[in-house]
């Protein structure tokens, strides 16, 4: 009963949409193998140089082009440092926001208390607050109370909004859970603590994992809040790339960007696999 012409038009539109979404990513991947160091927009020939450069394998001593490259390689160490910072921040942020977000979700789903509605609404705010407002608010706050900008301030900044993300995801899982499961556990002799450990947390596990994964991905990608609350010494990868783009694009960016795209595909696929796994 579908109108075949309409459906065909819709299909063409949809496929064009997916080209729009993916073409830019493929452009980057393509350029990451272009050997032209002077004008990276003009195709020279295929090379792995930029990847080798990233891994610190480039030959620094040969011809002029290599000399050129040697300049870029200076930034490699900084980039690896930024990656390390990003991973460290994301690891701490994920842990903290997952613990707090999960505890909050359990509290709001399983207990009745007067301020419940207030909490539910309030927890939406950090997600909806534009990151620039939160970023400068944190910046003024840290400076005013005399706290040095460091990795710690980045972690705090990320946790302020990622706790809400984890909360939302765990709460959704919680809402789908049969309350009789916890009652059955208590009925069979398990205390509140044992029920939490043996029944509630395992049942919530897919939601908690999903929330943690999301928190990790967003923390790794956050630019704006990090940009404001990072100290001079601690740059994360997105801020580092942002800086590179502002100072003038260099070919390594393409290689870094390609690796980031690949990593994100892997993470997203893992997330999808976790979600699609049967959990009943």
């Amino acid at each position: 009963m579908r109108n075949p012409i309409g459906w065909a038009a819709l299909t063409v539109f949809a496929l064009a949409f997916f080209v729009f979404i993916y073409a830019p990513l493929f452009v980057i991947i393509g350029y990451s193998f272009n050997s032209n160091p002077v004008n990276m927009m003009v195709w020279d020939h295929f090379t792995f140089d930029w990847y080798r450069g990233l891994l610190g394998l480039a030959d620094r001593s040969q011809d002029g082009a290599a000399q050129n490259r040697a300049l870029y390689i200076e930034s490699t160490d900084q980039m690896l440092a930024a990656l390390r910072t990003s991973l460290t921040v994301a690891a701490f942020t994920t842990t903290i926001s997952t613990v707090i977000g999960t505890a909050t979700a359990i509290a709001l789903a399983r207990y009745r208390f007067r301020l419940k509605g207030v909490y539910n609404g309030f927890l939406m705010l950090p997600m909806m607050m534009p990151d620039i407002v939160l970023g400068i608010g944190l910046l003024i706050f840290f400076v005013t109370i005399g706290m040095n900008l460091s990795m710690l301030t980045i972690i705090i900044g990320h946790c302020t909004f990622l706790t809400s993300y984890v909360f939302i995801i765990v709460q959704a899982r919680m809402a789908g859970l049969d309350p009789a499961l916890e009652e059955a556990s208590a009925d069979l002799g398990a205390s509140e603590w044992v029920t939490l450990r043996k029944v509630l947390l395992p049942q919530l596990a897919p939601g908690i994992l999903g929330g943690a994964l999301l928190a990790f991905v967003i923390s790794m990608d956050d630019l704006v809040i990090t940009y404001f609350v990072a100290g001079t010494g601690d740059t994360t990868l997105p801020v580092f790339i942002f800086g590179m783009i502002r100072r003038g694009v260099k070919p390594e960016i393409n290689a870094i960007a390609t690796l980031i795209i690949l990593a994100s595909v892997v993470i997203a696929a893992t997330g999808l696999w976790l979600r699609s796994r049967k959990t009943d």
Partner: protein
Amino acid sequence: MALLEIRAARRVFVTPEGGRVAALDGVDLDVGANEFVTLLGPSGCGKTTLLRSISGFEALNGGSIALDGADLSKLPPFRRPVNTVFQSYALFGHMSVARNVGYALEVRGVAKGQREAKVAEALEKVGLDGMGARRPSQLSGGQRQRVALARSIIAEPRLLLLDEPLSALDRNLRQQMQLELKALQARLGIAFVFVTHDQEEALTMSDRIVVMRAGKIEQIGPPRDIYRRPKNRFVADFIGETNLFDLTVERIEGSEARARTPEGVELVLPSQGLVAGQAVTAVLRPADFTLAAAGLAGTVTRAVYLGQDLHLFVQPAGGGAEIRVTARDGAAAPSAGDAVHLAHDPAAVHVLEAA
């Protein structure tokens, strides 16, 4: 002394509109050590609240619940020596069947070897031997039901609570499980308190039925008593199909009394305790009437075919409510529009106590 003693139990809920509803309004109930008691009533009658007060998921606002003479009401659910079979079964999806069944022992710190033996034994009792390694999601509805049962009896409770455990099963399986549950209860020798809104289920399984309405107990008694000798109109109406007649006694003739409805339908009642001129309500089940050559005259308005039997709706000649009659199907069976006469055995009539 009874195993379970409930005295003057009260539980009041505050509705979202701020009103107060008594889910339990002064309930007294005793359950014996090896008894199958069913709580029966329409939804909202308080039967589930009563069950959850025994298991500890609802706190009473007044009254007491004692098991073996020891007060339960201060104990949290996990310290009460009673177990529950939940309506949704509430099986832990992240555990195997065996771990589900052994859960009560696991949380009490029973050693693994001992646990395994008990689990195997419990699974065998419910006819699931060898299924321990499966996941609940791999089982059928009936099998999940049995896992829930095995899980709840493994800690050897004195009292098992069952919250509409058969409502998710289809009709055939339900009937089979009714018989199995009853047999299991007899074999285990423990008390069952069973909640249902299905009167047929209650009649089939129970030693005693507790009929509840609006937080109060309407009647307690064995199934036959509840069916044949309902205490009031509500019980008579709720259990089985019923014809209720509001009559005035006209005269007493020895062991029989003649009584008449305002429309002129005449019935013969057992005369015991009645006096002429008294207003009474009589209960007659559809099967208490027989088609006869003479007697109460009426016209069949509808005849519903039920297989063996035929369900007739008979409009009495004098007017008044239609009478429901069960008749044997056959060549001579009447159909809609036919004139019939109804007879009944006076001894079969149950007269309700005056309200």
